[in-house]
């Protein structure tokens, strides 16, 4: 008897609950006036809510340092400049452990539950690919994603998603350009990570050297689960190439630099890609072992004494100490975060309407926007046919205990024409 009673109560409760009906999602607020009809979810005159998704745990968790720099920037802007155009920025960070299904879950949480104005950065190509259909369906800006895949700029079906950093193909073009001038007959050996990043960069490099004297004579891949890349390195050494292109992520970057230094019978020009060019990667190898290594960059390295008296760098150092006391300002990921956050600041300020549509249009109409944390001469430009904010980089070589920039800023748009899919 009791059982039936409980059962009935349960069903009654459920029935009552069912009558509530769910709140229709996606019905956010809209603007009035000249921006009429545009979405204003997550933004008011006083506040701006952003969400970012990063691998704070798991194999790629080294990148989890980026949002610390972003947070410090927004905290600083909120406290000392009254936010962005009077709007205090609230920046929510979620962890996806570099797992695409987690990224989808967190993107939905941020959009539907937290009702953020925009996704400000998703990190990694897999996580971004898994979420961009959703964000574009929901018409939520997904701006300045932290991956250099060229897809973000060449794709036309996802206008709400845009990258920020120079894409891997552009970076490859910079190295190709360098070799064409310095070593027109270069024989190149390549070590690359067997994923989207490694393949994009290698593919871009091969396309950029087509029809020149520069040749790829050996290529070896590695998996992120490999304990060591030493076997690959001895394979490459056999090719007797005179240039070594090191397309790796930090730990493997260190291993490859160390393996190259150890092998005294093979001394190629060593080019290490930007992802692994941080001083934190080179230091464990020993500075004496990495002299003359070449790389390229687009933002200011906090370890580089060149910027010691640079105004923006001084501000960065001071504000990091103040607003992110546990974070070491010397970690370049923090500077990266700072740079991308101030880029967002500029883009948001330039938006004609303080709406999602306004931001979408603004990041796609950047005209030589200068960001102080970027290298002098590197600016952000986008247009209807150009979905890549930064496409210029400058070469640098390692001397003493730091990188030294050399040559001019290379604008790959000018040198190679626009990048198309």
């Amino acid at each position, binding site marked *: 008897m009791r059982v039936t009673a409980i059962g009935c109560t349960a069903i009654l409760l459920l029935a009552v609950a069912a009558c509530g009906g769910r709140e229709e999602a996606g019905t956010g607020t809209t603007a009035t006036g000249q921006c009429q009809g545009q979405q204003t979810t997550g933004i008011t005159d006083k506040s701006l809510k952003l969400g970012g998704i990063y691998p704070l*745990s798991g*194999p790629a*968790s*080294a990148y*989890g*340092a980026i949002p610390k720099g972003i947070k410090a920037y927004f905290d600083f802007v909120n406290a000392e400049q009254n936010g962005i155009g009077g709007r205090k920025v609230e920046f929510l960070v979620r962890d996806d452990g570099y797992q695409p299904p987690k990224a989808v879950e967190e993107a939905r949480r941020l959009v539907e539950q937290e009702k953020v104005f925009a996704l400000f950065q998703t990190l990694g190509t897999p996580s971004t690919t898994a979420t961009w259909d959703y964000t574009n369906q929901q018409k939520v800006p997904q701006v300045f994603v932290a991956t250099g895949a060229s897809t973000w700029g060449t794709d036309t079906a996802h206008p709400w998603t845009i990258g920020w950093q120079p894409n891997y193909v552009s970076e490859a073009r910079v190295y190709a350009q360098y070799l064409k001038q310095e070593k027109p007959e270069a024989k190149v050996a390549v070590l690359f990570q*067997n994923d989207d990043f490694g393949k994009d960069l290698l593919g871009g490099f091969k396309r950029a050297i087509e029809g020149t004297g520069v040749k790829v004579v050996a290529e*070896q*891949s*590695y*998996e992120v*689960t*490999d*304990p*060591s890349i*030493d*076997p*690959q390195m*001895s*394979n490459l*050494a*056999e090719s007797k190439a005179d240039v070594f292109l090191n397309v790796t992520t*930090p*730990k493997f970057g*260190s*291993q490859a630099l*160390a393996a190259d*230094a*150890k*092998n*005294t*019978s093979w001394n190629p020009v060593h080019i290490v890609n930007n992802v692994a060019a941080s001083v*934190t*990667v080179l*230091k*464990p190898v*020993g500075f004496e*072992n990495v002299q003359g290594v070449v790389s390229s960059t687009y933002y200011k390295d906090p370890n580089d004494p060149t910027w010691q008296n640079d105004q923006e760098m001084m501000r960065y150092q001071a504000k990091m100490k103040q607003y992110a006391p546990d974070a070491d300002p010397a*970690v370049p990921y923090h500077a990266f975060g700072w740079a991308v956050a101030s880029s967002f600041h500029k883009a948001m300020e330039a938006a004609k309407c303080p709406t999602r549509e306004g931001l979408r249009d603004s990041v796609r109409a950047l005209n030589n926007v200068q960001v102080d944390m970027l290298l002098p001469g590197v600016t952000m430009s986008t247009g209807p046919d150009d979905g890549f904010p930064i496409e210029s980089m400058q070469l640098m070589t390692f001397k003493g205990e730091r990188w030294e920039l050399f040559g001019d800023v290379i604008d790959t748009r000018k040198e190679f024409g626009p990048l198309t899919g």
Partner: protein
Amino acid sequence: MTGFLQQLVQGLGTGAIYASLALALVLIYQFTGIVNFAQGELAMFSTYIAWQFTAAGVPFWLALALTLVVSFAGGMLIERLVIRPVEGAPELTVVIVTVGLFIFVNAAAGWIWTFLIKDFPNPFPGGAFEAGGLSVSYSTLGILVVVGLVMGLLYLLFQHTKIGLGMRAVATNPDSARLVGIRVGWTLALGWGLAATVGAVSGVLVAPLLFLEPNMMGGVLIYAFAAATLGGFDSPVGAVVGGLIVGVAETLAGAYVEFIGSDLKVGVPLVIILGVLLFRPQGLFGRAAVERV
């Protein structure tokens, strides 16, 4: 030909890394009869302790000695706290507990020391020994020597000491061992302590080559398992020989077998484990287990 020999040397160098961890696996299996999935992570954690000492200004060799002591104590503590409560439980339970330990230690290291790589001092001189067009780095030679030493010590411990005898009795049959007066609990704790110490040696040896971060040993673990399986889980000599064979096989397969290439060479330990288990389950140097029903 030089190329081939150089690859061979390279394989031996890589194999020495696998062998160093395989020794710890064999040790703990000998003492306790279990396969410890957390062994690599414990080694990584010990390496962080050594790093912490050197970062605090302790000279390298003193730091190493301190680390070995701390690891030994830590290993025994883990046995007391984590393994003792499930002693005598089915194999499944113990394996799951070591998997839990694996996850925990990995995340704890990330929590304490972050996921950015640390620079770890190299106990061996840089540079390489060159002869006849071949070059072997001093690090590789150093690892081989240390691994050989540890192997010798373990062999003596297993075969020529009373502890070794008692430990074999415990691993084979804890109940009978207890009846003949062996302190089973103490022996098990000793096994964990020693395995953690050997693991610490392994971690400190490989850290300058693999670079220290929480996932440093994750990739090594499966190769070390293959090494221990190949050599036989109850033979330290087998672990070292197995490690070297796995290293050479992997390197040569990656370099010379077109289909495998550098991307599929992680299939080599899989093939080795499967092959050994199907055709010679006791491994090259192990004794065939006789099961009593």
